[in-house]
């Protein structure tokens, strides 16, 4: 009976989406952006750990409506990347006074970049590498929580025209993943039914091709159906400059992110990120007004405003700390390993990112599903 009432309420509300519990996709986007920038701005392992915890906390809160999109693959990816980055960073360039041990070393010849692998491993390098690993883990966890909490289709409709093709491809890709896993299982069973005796890793090559083939075929079917339903119709989008600006912007963003990890948090990498982001924004604005319409508005509530405000404050706090040189926001393990400093403002910045966990409530559509 309760679900029935909910349905009536939904339909009776003048076309507004009455999914009382879920936050506006825009608020989620702001949260993700704020979280990522805050993580980017600091290299202090204490704050980064808080950021990681915040992301996991938010995921735990939205999990009941996560529609089967588990955080597990994201956690695995994050931990894997983080775990790999530690030895990589330590072995590709250790310096500093506190020598831990000396690993066997190998120097590539000049034409391969004259890179030395191995050699002395120092405490400073280890601490720095761990900090980077934490930051990677925090970013992946933020992305995972975001993925679990939003409805991809609602996000798709929010994307500007210039990016709609890209977003659609992404959405289709997201749908393809679980289907591919099912396909892989089916193929593996078919192989066993046909007496193929290899299992485990040795069976992988034989499994990969048919699985990819199946996934591709399904994507083509979906693309065909989308074409027949009018996707991409109307005014053809042939404007090249916005596309160029977009690509250049994305390039700058990646360069900034790379610089951030390789050379440590510096104003240069942050400037590159900012410039890249503005180029992308410019490209989006130039992409022209969307000619589509919406069945239901996504309602912007006070809670969404709160989440955005929290994201902004969080970024401002971390940036403020850096500008003031307080709280060890730009922590460096060189020249000596010292315990990182700690400032309440930095902690507050990352605790604020937990806000969606408190404001999120089960979705109406979600409870409908469980009926």
């Amino acid at each position, binding site marked *: 009976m309760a679900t029935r009432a*909910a*349905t009536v309420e*939904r*339909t009776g509300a003048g*076309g507004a989406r009455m999914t009382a519990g879920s936050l506006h996709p825009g608020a989620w986007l702001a949260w993700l952006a704020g979280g990522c920038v805050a993580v980017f701005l600091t290299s202090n392992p204490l704050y980064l750990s808080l950021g990681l915890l915040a992301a996991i906390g938010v995921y735990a809160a939205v999990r009941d409506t996560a*529609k*089967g999109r588990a955080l597990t693959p994201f956690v695995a990816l994050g931990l894997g990347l983080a775990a790999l980055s530690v030895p990589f960073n330590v072995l590709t360039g250790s310096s500093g006074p506190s020598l831990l041990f000396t690993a066997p070393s190998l120097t590539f010849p000049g034409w391969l970049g004259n890179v030395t692998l191995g050699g002395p491993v120092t405490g400073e390098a280890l601490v720095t590498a761990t900090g980077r690993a934490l930051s990677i883990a925090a970013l992946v966890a933020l992305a995972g929580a975001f993925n679990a909490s939003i*409805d*991809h*289709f*609602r996000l798709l*409709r929010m994307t500007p025209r210039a990016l709609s093709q890209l977003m*659609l491809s992404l*959405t*289709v890709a997201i749908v393809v993943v679980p289907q591919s896993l099912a*396909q892989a299982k*089916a*193929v593996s*069973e*078919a*192989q*066993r*039914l*046909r*007496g*193929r*005796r290899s299992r485990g890793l040795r069976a992988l090559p*034989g499994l990969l*091709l*048919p699985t990819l*083939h*199946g996934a591709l*075929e*399904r994507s083509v*079917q*979906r*693309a*065909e*159906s*989308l*074409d*027949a*339903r*009018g*996707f*991409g*119709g*109307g005014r053809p989008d042939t404007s090249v400059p916005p596309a160029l600006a977009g690509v250049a912007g994305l390039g700058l963003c990646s360069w900034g992110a790379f610089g951030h990890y390789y050379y440590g948090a510096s104003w240069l990498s942050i400037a590159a990120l900012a410039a890249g982001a503005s180029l992308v924004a410019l490209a989006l604005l130039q992409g022209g007004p969307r*000619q*589509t*319409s*919406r*069945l*239901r508005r996504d309602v912007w509530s006070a809670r969404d405003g709160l989440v955005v405000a929290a994201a902004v404050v969080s970024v401002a706090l971390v940036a403020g700390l850096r500008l003031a040189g307080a709280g060890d926001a730009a922590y460096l393990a060189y020249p000596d390993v010292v315990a990182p400093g700690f400032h309440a403002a930095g902690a507050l910045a990352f605790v604020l990112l937990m806000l969606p966990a408190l404001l999120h409530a089960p979705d*109406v*559509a979600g409870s*409908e*599903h469980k009926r």
Partner: protein
Amino acid sequence: MIDVRGLGFQYASSARQALEDVTFSCGAGELVLVAGPSGGGKSTLLRCLNGLVPHFHGGTFAGEVVTGGLDTRSHQPRDMAGVVGMVFQDPESQMVAETVEDELAFGMELAGTEPLTMRKRVEEALDLLRIEPLRARRLESLSGGELQRVAIAAVLTMQPRVLLLDEPTSQLDPQAAEELLTTVRRLNDDLGLTVLIAEHRLERVVQYADRLLYVAGDGSVEEMDVRDAMGSLPIAPPVARLGRALGWSPLPLSVREGRPFAEAYGRGNGNAPLTVHSGSTPRGKATVRLAGVGVRFGEIAALRDVTLDVFPGEITVLMGRNGAGKTTLLRTLAGLTPPDSGTVSVLGRDVGATATELLADDVALVPQRPEDALYKQTVAEEIGETLRGTGREGSIDEALEEWHLEPLRDAHPADVSAGERQRVALAAMLAGRPRLLLLDEPTRGMDYETKELLVANLRSRCGEGATVLLASHDVELAGRCGDRVVLLAGGEVAVDGPAREVLSESLTFSTQVNKLMGGRYLTPEDVLARRERLGT
């Protein structure tokens, strides 16, 4: 509404014309059945009508197709979306959104329809397809039949004047298929929508169709009157085939139309079991023995205390609703799903203790979706893979011949038509001479000709002493080839008996001919055999 003149098309990857010099036209409000053997070009023909051919599928195109005033040569499929709506075989692969309402609004949102209009059309579509209660549901929580109705509703919100349905029921169980086709007919009646439907289950649609387009497979398309077509073509529902053999005129297309003829002929004659194959031959030792078998998936019991013996030289048909446990039972016998309780022995081997790949020497399972079974590069390789892996005796040529696949020997399994792929899967999984054949829903979307081939091949395997166990919703198939029917309900054996008894005493599980003629008749052949014996 649709004008096709001199249409010809050849896929870029194919050596022969898929369609050649096709000319026909359809008026507004017609319901046209597109019939013909699988792989014959039905899907291609439908795709020509909204421009997917040649815009999405490349190839050599000739002639002219005008749908709702739009020429497909100058209009992209996406520009025609407002005039022609198309629904594909697999409902899952055409969904984009996460909830039913969003899916319905998707096309209109792209077209920039006014929100108020959009709102109205969504409500209308929800009512037309009777899916209002599903409006807020997430798509992944819907059944196949519900999804297919959502797919049609999503296309209808664009208010097309033509609806193209490409084998819309091939993924559905009979109940859902029946409901869907009834709905389509209502849309045609109430909205005056022009509907072209490619469909194999002729017994369900043929009586509603105004006309029939026969896509023969050699590139030609013939425009026919439905009754004429049923009187002359190899594809016809059982009632029409019986009427044809007995010279009934005008030819009945449905049980209802056939009833007066049946009354005159004498219903219910011959209540004694008429043996075409009634399982009266002495049984050998059971090859499959299940004792108290239970399988659970979390909270759900898929099989409950199933005790069953299956005998060689017989075709045993497993029937029952969706979710009754048919697939689970077959998977258990092939060693894919281990039983949680009870014992399963197949050909004297304990299934719980034998790996699937070792059982495969004697046991073959054909899964429901042929795509799930195939993973090699050519049809011949698919068969070779099984022979090599299982060490069963047999040759690739023999299997190709058995399933009429010689011309497709070097084709990629993904490039052949859906119907052909079913034959490839059968040939690949049943290659060699397995002693136990397990088939899961083998006739989904299968044309009559292939069904005949399947029945003949299963019969001959049985004659060689093999055991056949097939799960199916297809009552006609069970009537054609079943010796014994086991009805599962809620994971338990509900009914178990000779096919002729089970299928002729049931309200829902009886064949068209049984509904018409009563008694123990299941197929047109039964009636004719009796007639011959009486010498009339």
